[in-house]
């Protein structure tokens, strides 16, 4: 059983009000030294079989059509442990 991670982030040109709100809050909470924050999503998929090329191709299709909205988001797929 393999675990695949899909990270989905807003495209750089799309405004990210959640990230901005965090960046603005940090100094108020006494944290300095952070320039910018962006917030995205992280999906952990448990595959029933091994994370071979075929399985990964399938996950990429899932990411492309479902997990990310490619009009506004980019995604990356990677295998873990």
């Amino acid at each position, binding site marked *: 059983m393999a675990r695949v991670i899909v990270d989905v982030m*807003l495209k750089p*040109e*799309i*405004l990210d*009000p*959640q990230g901005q*709100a965090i960046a603005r809050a940090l100094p108020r909470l006494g944290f300095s030294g952070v320039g910018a924050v962006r917030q995205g999503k992280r999906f952990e998929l448990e595959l029933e079989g091994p994370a071979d090329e075929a399985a990964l191709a399938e996950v990429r299709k899932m990411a492309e059509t*479902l*997990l990310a*909205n490619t*009009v*506004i988001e980019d995604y990356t797929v990677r295998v873990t442990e």
Partner: protein
Amino acid sequence: MSAARVGVVTFPGTLDDQDAARAVHLVGAQAVPLWHADHDLKGVDAVFLPGGFSYGDYLRCGAISRFAPIMDELIPAAGAGLPVIGTCNGFQILCEAHLLPGALTRNASLHYVCRDQRVRIEQTATAWTNAFDQGQEIVLPVKHGEGRYVASDETLAALEAGGHVVVRYVGGNPNGSLNGIAGIRNEAGNVVGLMPHPEHAVEELVGAPSTDGLGFFTSILKNLVDA
């Protein structure tokens, strides 16, 4: 002549379907319930995709609904000219289904917002707004957490240049939408999506303090009769 038949789609988690059906009745048309899991548009003359939290708005608003069996029928039908309107979650579904360009994202305020909103009808050349006057200002409720319309610069420019912006917020932008966009249409003008809720502004007694939403429903009647 038999009454025009407007389909109202219910997905799991749809909330405003009864409201939409009632508004359809109020203007003298027949509301036909359509079920997400059916491959059947029941021969309706137009389709209303109502608001709500289909599939809990999990993942992204509208992302899962767009794959419902009914959408397999609706997408080609809309392409062939069937009048379709999506309000709120319905608008989000239309964008996810690529029947309309762009996307709806988290409100800039990061809060859900329910308020009576002044908007301007920017385009009457659509199946759903032809009963209004160009530039007419009306009040409709908005109620959503993810209604900030975004699109690439080119898409935005094309929408503006082509007159595809149908409704625009005035007197305050409730969600930070680019160019104050509240609603858009497709190239052909048969598909319209907007965040405000015309179906909640159709009766004196209940809902928003306006009946301005009726125009969307009388438009479709007019459209069907004229057609």
